[in-house]
């Protein structure tokens, strides 16, 4: 019936035709995924002149790190801007992450352990967050931020990212708390620990992977966010990387090596972070959807 029984090797053992289809498919996916990234890297080590040739230099004839040096040199204006954007992104993302963990940990714990009316609210908050695009919130949020005097401050971004990241962060963490047996806490409390002590001494350490996952999620989200940063900030010295790179491109429309080098350096921190910690992250992300 299936293809396996039709194709056989000389030894009469069936070749798994599907396995070969799978391999060819994977090679194609690798191409689709990796070629754009490789092209970004190859372009970033060309000179502006070398990048604009036809036929192109597939591999740069004279590789150069000039674009990277320019971006990282605090003594010229491009480097000054880039480093400042980088620092701004780092500050905003770190603050968002720290606050998200502080607010999400107790909330997730409560959603996991206590049975109070309105628990379902979490579920709907996650939905709301996922369903409604940022643009819907932009105009009123912009007005709200003006009211709070936060326009053109990093505070506006941190507050916004925190809010939009919270529901999923709570949801992720709740999955971890659900998996920690309640008996462990009960045992600690029988031994005289208060609920808070049991939480800090027993539950927190066990849920460390979940906290790490939540932190990565918040950090990557804040690091890559564009619309709010684009709308709330307009002073050059406050821009974060995504908006900063856009500004860089609009001022240097033909400097593709510079643009690719900037894109690479902007991607590097989150990609490294993700690859180091992907096990936790992937586990947390799928926990809710698969196991419940």
């Amino acid at each position: 019936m299936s293809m396996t029984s039709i194709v056989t090797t000389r030894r009469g053992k069936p070749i798994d035709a599907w396995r070969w289809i799978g391999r060819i498919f994977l090679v194609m996916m690798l191409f689709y995924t990796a070629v754009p990234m490789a092209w970004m890297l190859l372009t970033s080590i060309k000179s502006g002149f070398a990048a604009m040739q036809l036929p192109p230099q597939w591999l740069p004839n004279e590789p150069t790190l000039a674009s990277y040096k320019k971006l990282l040199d605090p003594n010229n204006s491009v480097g000054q801007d880039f480093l400042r954007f980088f620092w701004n992104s780092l500050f905003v993302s770190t603050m968002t992450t720290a606050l998200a963990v502080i607010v999400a940990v107790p909330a997730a714990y409560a959603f996991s352990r206590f049975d109070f009316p309105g628990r379902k609210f979490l579920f709907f908050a996650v939905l709301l967050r996922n369903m409604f695009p940022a643009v819907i919130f932009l105009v009123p949020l912009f007005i709200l931020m003006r009211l709070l005097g936060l326009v053109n401050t990093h505070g506006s971004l941190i507050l916004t990212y925190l809010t939009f990241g919270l529901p999923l962060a709570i949801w992720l963490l709740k999955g971890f708390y659900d998996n920690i047996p309640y008996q462990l806490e009960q045992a600690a409390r029988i031994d005289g620990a208060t609920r808070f002590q049991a939480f800090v001494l027993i539950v927190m350490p066990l849920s460390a992977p979940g906290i790490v996952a939540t932190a990565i999620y918040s950090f990557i989200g804040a690091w890559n966010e564009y619309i709010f940063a684009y709308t709330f900030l307009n002073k050059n010295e406050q821009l974060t990387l995504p908006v900063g790179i856009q500004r860089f491109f609009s001022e240097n429309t033909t400097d593709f090596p510079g643009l690719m080098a900037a894109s690479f350096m902007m991607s590097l921190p989150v990609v490294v972070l993700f690859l180091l910690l992907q096990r936790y992250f992937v586990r947390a992300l799928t926990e809710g959807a698969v196991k419940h």
Partner: protein
Amino acid sequence: MTMATGLVDAPLKAKAKRFGFLRQAWDHRFDYLYVLPAIVVMLIVIAYPIYYTVELSFFTTPPSLQLRDKEFVGIDNYGLILSSDVFWRVTANTFIWTLASTAFAFTLGLGSALALNHEFLGRGVLRAILIIPWVISAVAASYIWKWIYHSDFGLIGAVLVGLGLAERPPNLIDSVGTVLPSLIVVNVWREFPFAMIMLTAGLQTVPDQLLRAAKVDGAGAWQRFWHVTFPHLQGVSTVTILLLAVSNFNSFIIPWIMTGGGPSNASHIWITHIYELAFGRQRWGIASAYSVLLFLTLMTLGYFYVRALSSAENKERVA
């Protein structure tokens, strides 16, 4: 109060049932302290803007956004939108964009998850490489692809010319016919890894014994997939497809950075169009009315989303 709960007699119990929600809420009042910070922040930043958007959709405001000068116009904003040609063009784009992106991202993600589902040398590395596009910022991805699609020096044009398939590099994102498919390719590039991750996790729930038993009984690879693996993936697939659909419907960065909606609205989708109306042309009332329409569409989508999620949840519970 709390301590007495166990001792209430019958009439009091009936009363408690009538005020069940409040009563329970009171009994659990301290539990709310844990969620209070999260709820306060979300009320300010989510609930208030929703209310405000609905209100503003019935007004016109001057470009300066001096809100005291706003003028009540009833449902005129909605009438203007529904009778404009651009609206229908953008709506068609949005649906093509959402459906095509979701279908391709899901299919490629499923294929990758299945192909990576057995041990082989280098599997971990391959999986990591396939996930990277999902982690890269959409802004960086947009610029990488803008450069690949470049109409003079882009990689795709160079390859096509090099192979003799084209005389000169094609104008992929500057022409009305090809812009939307070209952007969908970029979007799928960024999104299929998400489907892959979700489905990889889903595959862990397929019992090995069942697959082995099916093999012993002579089931081929396709039969094993269709009769054993696939039924186990249904819950995850539903969730994944809906999450993808919603996030595609809400896309902004890729079209905004790569084309700004052009040429002649060919790559405008709802969100980019709303953004341009609000922040580009300062037509806040119309943009708000647009947002409300978007909202209603999403509510409809969301209805199915909640139903699918809760039925997936119930299935897990029963299993």
